[in-house]
């Protein structure tokens, strides 16, 4: 009997709409990955992205010296690889910024060489 069996290596739950389709990533005997269970084209694209290179926008806070608030909310200006989130958080913790700060100001440029900048999410004045 010919071996055509494939095994599900991961189930990716689609987040694009509340249907939340469970999309299976299957690995066949030749090592090819196929996706199953998506119900729209965007779902397939999402599953592929999530399987091969999952990315997230990181949002956190950064410490502020002599600010109106002790923290300023910051974000990456583009999605970064999911497995780099922790490393970027560690970079952000090292820094204390000085107000005045304007929304969009770059607080860390090209963080860890990921091409993404850490930018301010709001204006923040001195105390």
């Amino acid at each position, binding site marked *: 009997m010919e071996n055509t069996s494939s095994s599900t290596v991961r189930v990716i*739950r689609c987040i694009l709409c509340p249907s939340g389709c469970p999309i299976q990533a299957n690995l066949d005997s030749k090592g090819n990955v196929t996706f199953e269970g998506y119900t729209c084209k965007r779902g397939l694209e999402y599953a592929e992205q999530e399987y091969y290179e999952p990315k997230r926008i990181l949002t956190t806070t950064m410490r502020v010296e002599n600010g109106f608030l002790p923290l300023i909310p910051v974000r990456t200006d583009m999605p970064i690889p999911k497995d780099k989130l922790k490393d970027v958080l560690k970079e952000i913790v090292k820094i204390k910024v000085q107000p005045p700060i304007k929304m969009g100001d770059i607080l860390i440029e090209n963080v860890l060489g990921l091409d993404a900048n850490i930018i301010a999410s709001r204006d923040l004045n001195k105390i």
Partner: protein
Amino acid sequence: MKTFEADVVIIGGGSAGMAAAIEVKNAGLDALIIERDYELGGILLQCIHVGFGLHEFGEELTGPQYAQKFINQVNELEIPYLLDTMVIEFTPDKTVYAVNNKEGLIKVESKAIILAMGCRERTRGAINIPGFRPAGIFTAGQAQRFVNMEGYLPGKSLVILGSGDIGMIMARRLTWEGCEVKAVIEINPYVSGLIRNQVQCLEDFNIPLILGYTVTKIHGKEKIRGVTISKVDTNFDRIVGSDRFIECDALLLSVGLIPENELTLKAGAKLSSNNGPIVDNNLESTIEGVFACGNVLQVHDLVDMVTAEAKRAGEFAIEYINQRYGKEIKREKQIKCVPGENVGYIKPDLVNVLDLSKEIMFTLRVKYPDRRIQIQFRDKENNQLVYKRNKVYVIPSEMVEIKLNLKENQIDPGCQHLIIDVVPRPEVLIEEE
């Protein structure tokens, strides 16, 4: 007593209040925003995650970014606002009383009022968890403000009760801040927030999500040291023998939001079953010239929807001042919208018969999730179906919006009540959405 004057007073300087004020100002009328916090922006300022603005700005913004864009507009338009100022009362003749540290008691005379006070969180008292009252119990939004704006952590090892979006987002946030989130407990057999948050806030970090359980006891006298969780049956009653102890030093509650309407009630306006003011299709409350928008009217899923609603409230207030203010116009006949099967509430509560030829935005929330359903508007008087629409799924966490012209749908002139049902779809129909 210091006295101010404005065409429209907007109570609340969050997303709803700012959008309404901008609309009023752009029409050439004077707006005044009264905000109790020390800056404009409202709850958006503590929602530092992304997911805001896709509809309004076509890009994915954080809460503070979304707020900042509106704050900048308010400043550019030179719309006056009072900060650190708490409205304590407004009256049906549109006089607003407020207090602050600088001016003491303030009186504002206006022609119309827009209510934009937002909502507040349900607390432990609302869900009656037995146990002492130790330190370490927070609502999720309260913890969010501490963590994201003030620089405090609520604890190091936490349990979150309720799988609402704020609860799940806080689970991720606290994990990133080095805390351990032991579990998210949800009484329903399904998650109450968005799937996106379940995946990106819980599953990404392997945070256990325990469905069909609730917290039945809080342990610790001075400081919380753990909780007992128990499985519940379909009536949400504890199943004996299913108890589990989880050690923790903080408990966050993400168990729902309530529109904050003490001022509205005090002024004599009536509220509906969702705790928001009863409004007609002009978002006008039962007090003439008093309008409501944003989470004070109904808790929204997206700030973009709050903005859209607030702009409409602004337009209706402008229309009121231009056409009806100071004139003796009798309130016309109104049709009551009544929530029927699987409908928690519907807005507006009332439709003016004179406005039947206008497009009206209806919003509703279902009580439980369902698939392959039909939303039906039925004339109670003659039992005729006025309007129907198919949907693939409905869930309580997703508000349903329906734009509808009732006249085009041939509503009977004798209709006094519209019953809105969400029911299983009759088989033969063609799928729309």
